[in-house]
């Protein structure tokens, strides 16, 4: 009887892919029942409401062109992604250790890589859902106000999903390194909001195009709404005494940025998974 049950337990063990789906499913449930998602939904509603209602309330004239009108909404997307990535990825791994739920999960017959990928997919799913809702409502409001739509919004949304994937991957990497949730969340947030953008702003002073910076690539979300797509330009700033300083305004190329984001996803996830596998559950 015992041997038959042992064979049964081994034989019916699901594949890694099936377990990934299980982990992702229950992690999505966690997000759906969490106050964090509620907070993000409230923030989305607030941003949509203010972007739509404030100009009307102030008597400002709305743009006629759907792309121009939609751009106002798109301008908030990167902050939404930063907040979303922080909240859903920032402590995804460290929480299993800090809250001791790892003692429940890790002794089960499931690989660490399976848990990692499942959690990442759930985070990605929530971020994509969040973006779909935001862009959907923004498109609807654009239709109401301008009578039309723009395919550029679709490109922007797709790029936002790619940026979200990369930001979430970075969040997962940070989450595997830190010992506490608070530190992990704070570092994820400030890395995306301040540190990377600061470096992105400083590099052009040295005439270096920051094509490899995550947040520089993320700015395609907004620029893609502009027709024609902006190109790099140089400006000479007079310093006085007949001296000039050349200042480059760099714009990310869509194709290159997409590849860079993919690299961020692959590298951050690979490194994060490696560190998670080696991380020990100590008291």
């Amino acid at each position, binding site marked *: 009887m015992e*041997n038959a049950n*042992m064979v049964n337990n*081994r034989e019916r063990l*699901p594949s890694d892919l099936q377990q990934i789906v299980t982990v992702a499913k229950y992690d999505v449930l966690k997000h759906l029942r969490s106050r964090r998602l509620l907070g993000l939904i409230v923030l989305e509603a607030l941003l949509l409401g203010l972007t739509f209602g404030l100009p009307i309330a102030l008597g400002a004239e709305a743009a006629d062109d759907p792309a121009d009108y939609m751009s106002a909404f798109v301008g908030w997307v990167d902050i939404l992604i930063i907040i979303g990535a922080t909240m859903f990825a920032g402590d995804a791994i460290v929480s299993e250790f800090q809250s001791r*739920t790892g*003692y429940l999960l890790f*002794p089960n*017959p499931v*690989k660490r890589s399976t848990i990692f990928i499942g959690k990442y997919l759930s985070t990605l799913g929530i971020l994509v859902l969040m973006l779909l809702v935001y862009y959907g409502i923004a498109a609807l409001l654009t239709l109401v106000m301008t009578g039309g739509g723009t395919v550029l919004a679709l490109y922007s949304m797709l790029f936002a999903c790619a940026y979200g994937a990369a930001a979430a991957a970075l969040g997962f990497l940070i989450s595997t390194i830190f010992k506490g949730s608070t530190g992990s969340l704070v570092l994820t947030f400030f890395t995306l909001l301040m540190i990377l953008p600061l470096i992105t702003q400083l590099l052009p002073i040295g005439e270096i195009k920051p094509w490899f910076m995550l947040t520089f690539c993320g700015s395609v979300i907004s620029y893609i709404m502009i027709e024609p797509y902006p190109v790099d330009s140089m400006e000479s700033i007079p310093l006085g005494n007949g001296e000039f300083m050349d200042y480059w305004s760099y714009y990310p190329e869509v194709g290159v940025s997409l590849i860079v984001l993919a690299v961020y996803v692959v590298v951050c996830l690979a490194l994060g998974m490696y560190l998670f596998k080696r991380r020990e559950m100590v008291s």
Partner: protein
Amino acid sequence: MDAPIQVHGLTKVYGGGFRAVDALELNVPKRSFMGFLGPNGAGKTTSIKIITNMLTATAGEAYINGVSVMQDPKTALADVGAVVETPEFYPYLTPMETLHYLGALRGMSVCETTNRGRDLLEMVKLTEWRDQRVGKFSKGMKQRLAIAQALLPQPSVIILDEPTSGLDPRGMVEVRDILKQLRKMEVTVLMSSHLLNEVQEVCSDVSLINRGKLLRSGSVEDLLDEVKARKIEVRTMRPLTPDMFDRLRSVPGVKGFGVTGELSFAIDFEGEEDAQARLLIELQNLGLLVVSFKESGLALESLYMSLIMESR
């Protein structure tokens, strides 16, 4: 490889050179209930964490049902149910949802998990809480749920790490009752504990460990035979008075005694069951009106303490 759990040369060295586990050798016989006994810091939990793939060994091997935990942890743990330290549960899930999550990871069908989960929650007395989110549970309730999730897939190997730790007396009694039910099942259990009376009460085999090393291993019966002296705790309705001391000392097998309370005392005794029966008769003849007469775990404590002292 017959023993379901086998550990060979298991070593764990932390940064700074601290050896938590030192070339540990352990075999847990099939269908035994083995107590893994040792003081705090002996290496019990570290060993169990390595066996359940939560820590990486510095050296050595651990096998469960013939499969190396280091090489193929997923297969090795397929037929294992474990409660390690005091696990926390996902607060947003109910007990039934938690069991469904873990059941799905093991390939159990929804129907099977529901039926089995219902039976297990009844066994651990959590039926009325099955649809409440675990975030509201007390420590004792979580510990009982932890045991339920360990039993969910009907594993052939169960690993428990101090399952009564941190529980109030009622909680400890409830968990021990569950452990006694496990003893009747056809499973192999490895249970770590530092509570000697718990081990002596529940376990069939014992492995004593200190400073990461195995000191002694064997059946509880064999180990107790090594310790000839036993301690018998007696409670009476009348006090043991000084005029009775000489008569008590003269009973065959009595090596000494100590008064532990107004109506209780403990006797150091050497002898088989028939000699114990004669001791009980003699106590009654003294007019003490014996309420309780039982062997305490202190016999095992004597062996344990002597081995611990030797190992220092």
